[in-house]
Structures are given as structure tokens and as C-alpha cells.
């Protein structure tokens, strides 16, 4: 049951403008969003709709031009371990092994060597990479790299995991497998997930709630709660109904923009 009184994450009228070659780009206009602890929220929209900008503001990589981003009611100013980011291009440290990458966060925060070691082993087994614990990132497949990236933020006690099209560069088989694994981890750990994607199916399969965004200027268009029971069947009729509904919504943005 979502608790509507105290959101883990709240955006209040957040706007973001960039200066690009002397031109003002409005990446995000007046975004309002509340995320409850343990929720899985998907952000979806065409490119330029500001979904990545929104995520980067929550991560603390970007500041807001107007409005406020709050975590547990406190303004977000700068990146922090409680908000772990999983990038599409992984962002692993190439000079560290799988172990080293997962231990990077705990070590940076001054945990003892014993504690780091325990944490690392625990999260290596969580994502099933025991056999590759001493491999370097360039020796891993894309799917394995993304598992390391996920384990890395979980090992660092992230309360919110921010995922920026994390499975976008993976092949279909690997993507489905990682979606399943992510849901399993989410259900087991009670994480809060903010997940950016451009795949309607992925959003419906994963999300408790889908936030639909539209471009020019980037803004939140509508929200849709997904009440389908899990595990979800991507070919079930009610799944398809939602897919059709979302698809129409997204395409109407497109044609409106083109017109």
C-alpha cells in the first residue's frame, strides 16, 4: 500500500534550461512527481522529452533551473550514495575487477576491509557473477557489465536506484533475463526504482506506475498506474490493452510535434 504522506522522492515544479550554442533549450518544464518508498516507477517518452534530464536531476548530476527536487523532504544538492545510478553505458571502472567495482563504493565511504569483502561477496552472488569475480570489465559481456553496475549501487546501500535505459544496449534475450532478475531483486530488497526507458513493453512489464513524458519542451504528460498482477505476461490481453493505450498517447505527441 503506497503511503501518500511521506514520499521518498518528490519533484516540485522542476524546470531545467540549457544553454546550447547560444540557444536556450528547455529540457524540462514544471515537473511534479511523487515516488513512494518501494515503488517501481518507469519514465517513458520520445527522445528529448526530458526523461534523462529528470533522472540526472534526481541523481544530483544536474541542478534545477526552477523548482525543487527532494529526497525524504530534504533538497537534493549533488550526487550521493543513497541514490545509485545505473548508466546505459555501464560506467564501470575498467581498471578494477568485478570485485573492485562492487567494492568501490563501500571502500570510498571508509568501510573496513572485512566489511567491504563481505559486502562484495554477498552482492556478487546476488547477481550471479561468482565465476567472474576477478574478471575485468572489458572481458565481460554487456549483460554481465550491467549486473556489475546494479550490484555496485546495491552494495553501496542505495535506497533509490536510478536507471537510465539500462538494458537499451543489450540483445533481446539478455534484456528479458535482466528484467526478470531486476524484478526479483526489487521484490526481495524493497528498493525504490526510477527507470527510464523508451520501450513501452519494458515499462508495462516492470513498472507499478508509468510516467508518460513528451518533448518540446520536455514535460510530464500523464501518469498511469499498472495494476496487473506479477509476474506479468507480455502477451496477455490486458497487457496489450495498456500497450495500445500508451502507444496511442505517445504517437499523438509525435504527430503533434511534427505538425
Amino acid at each position: 500500500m503506497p503511503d501518500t504522506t511521506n514520499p521518498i522522492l518528490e519533484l516540485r515544479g522542476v524546470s531545467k534550461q540549457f544553454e546550447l550554442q547560444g540557444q536556450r533549450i528547455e529540457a524540462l518544464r514544471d515537473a511534479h512527481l511523487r515516488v513512494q518508498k518501494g515503488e517501481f516507477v518507469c519514465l517513458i517518452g520520445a527522445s528529448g522529452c526530458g526523461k534523462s534530464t529528470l533522472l540526472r536531476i534526481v541523481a544530483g548530476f544536474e541542478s534545477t533551473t526552477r523548482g525543487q527536487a527532494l529526497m525524504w523532504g530534504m533538497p537534493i544538492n549533488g550526487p550521493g550514495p543513497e541514490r545509485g545510478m545505473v548508466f546505459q553505458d555501464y560506467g564501470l571502472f575498467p581498471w578494477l575487477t568485478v570485485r573492485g567495482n562492487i567494492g568501490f563504493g563501500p571502500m570510498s565511504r571508509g568501510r573496513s576491509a572485512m566489511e567491504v569483502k563481505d559486502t562484495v561477496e554477498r552482492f556478487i552472488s546476488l547477481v550471479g557473477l561468482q565465476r567472474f569475480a576477478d574478471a575485468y570489465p572489458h572481458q565481460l559481456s554487456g549483460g554481465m557489465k550491467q549486473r556489475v553496475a546494479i550490484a555496485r549501487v546495491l552494495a553501496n546501500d542505495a535506497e533509490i536506484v536510478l536507471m537510465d535505459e539500462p538494458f537499451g544496449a543489450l540483445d533481446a534475450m539478455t534484456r528479458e533475463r535482466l528484467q526478470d532478475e531486476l524484478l526479483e531483486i526489487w521484490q526481495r530488497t524493497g528498493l525504490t526504482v526510477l527507470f527510464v526507458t523508451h520501450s513501452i513493453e519494458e515499462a508495462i512489464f516492470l513498472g507499478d506506475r508509468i510516467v508518460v513524458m513528451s518533448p518540446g519542451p520536455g514535460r510530464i504528460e500523464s501518469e498511469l498506474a499498472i495494476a496487473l498482477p506479477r509476474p506479468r505476461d507480455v502477451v496477455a490481453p490486458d497487457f496489450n490493452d495498456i500497450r495500445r493505450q500508451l502507444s496511442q498517447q505517445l504517437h499523438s505527441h509525435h504527430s503533434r510535434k511534427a505538425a
Partner: protein
Amino acid sequence: MLLDAASRSPLIAAPTVEPALQRQTSFFSRLRNPLLAIVFPVVVLVVWHFATYGQKYSLIPPPIEVARALYDLTFGGIYDDAYSRTLHIHLLASLSRVYGGFAIAMTVALPLGLMIGRISLVRRLLDPTLQVLRPIPVTAWLPLSMIMFGLGPRSAFFLVCLGAFYPILINTIFGVRSVDPRLFEAASMLGCQGPAQFFRVVLPASLPAIFTGLRLGLGFAWVVIVVGEMTGVQTGLGAIIMEARQLSRTEIVICGMIVIGIAGFISDRLVMLLGKRLLRWSPNFA
């Protein structure tokens, strides 16, 4: 072992093809590459031999004479002149100047490069001057160096150091400045922020470029050794080349050239081995 394990995993597709291919060709390429590598030198030797052998007034000695001179230079017992059995002395003198000059260059260029790369004030303060000084050839520094450091080994050290300095500096700056910005984001969201990022992100990430700089720098140290030893030192491979030239002992000149080539090659190979070990993680070195 890792790759074997990987091939069994359904998640890995692409990386398994390459190692299999390598394994198949390694046996042949191991034999073929050295064979191919000596084809060209053999052709040069043959042409050189027929162009010079038996020619009375040839200024260039035939290869067999150079070989005899090299033997005499190394072990003695043929000519018994001033050069006999002196190679180790000259080689050692040059080695100490190359590695000494290189070490000095490294201790100055590395920290300087890191600072120029990371601290904008230092960059604006020093980079323009260094860029103007850079095109000046080491040879052009010779007269000034002899005035400043006197005739002898100190000038040689200075010039070798100068030759090694810029490759190390430029590559260090490049390495430090071209760290993927994503890695800073990753580090800061994991709780590694501010100055801590220098040791945990900047330094390791720029290590391959720094290493390339060190390798190039050491190579340049060998390149400028002859100029460095034109400063009136008595020993060294460069010194005997310049001296033998004045005595028209061209075979000794060529011996000096060959030894510099081989010593430089071996030293580069050793550095590469070291790099492969330290930078196992980098796809460019592994």
C-alpha cells in the same frame, strides 16, 4: 580459464570467437613473424654487400668488416686498437645517461603533467610557454646546454632529459584530460567525491596514456643520446660514433648505430612487458 568459462555462459556471445581464432593461428604466426621480420634486413645486407665488397675506394665498409669490427669492439682480439673490447664501457655509459636522463624527465614531467591537466591555473600559467619551447629541437639546445652545464656528462644528462620530457608531459596531460566524464559521475554517486577522485579515478584512468608517454619518452632518450654525447664526453655510444667519424672509422660508426638500435629495442620491449603486466585491465595492452 576465464574465457573457457565464458564460452559456457549463455550470456556471452561475441568474445568467444576471437580467442578461438587466436589459438588456431598462434602456432604459425609465432614462427612466421620472426621469419618475415628478417627478410628485409637480409635483403639490405645482400645489397650492401654487393655494393661495397671489393670496392677499393668505398667509403662505406662491407657488412663483413662491420661484423669483424663489432666482434672486436665487444670481445677484442682482432685489431687490438683503442676500440678493442670497449663496447661494455660505452654501452654502460650510454645506458646510465639514457635511464638517468629519462628518470629526471619522468620526475619532472609526470607531476607537472598531472597538475597542468587538472589545475586550470597551472595550465594557464605554464602551458603556453611549454608549447612554445616544445618545437625547439634538442640539437638547438646543445650550445646553450654546454654553457649552462659545462662540457661533459651533465650536459648529456640535460639533453637526454629534454628529449624524454615532452612525450611524457604531453601524454600525461592528454591522459588526465581525457578521462571519461561518466567515471566521475559514477565515482561521485558512489560516494567518492572531491580530491579523493584524483587517486581513485584520474590516476588509474590516465595510466595507459601516461604509460604510452613513458614508453615514447624512453624511445626519445635513445634517439637523442648521440646529440647528448656530442658534449665532449669521452665514453658512450654517441661519443664513439662522433669520434670514429673524425677518424674515418666508418665501421665503428655503424657498430655504434647497430648497438643503439638493439639496446633501444630491448629497452622498449622490457617497458612493454612491464606495461602488459601493470595494465592487464586495459584492452589496449592486454
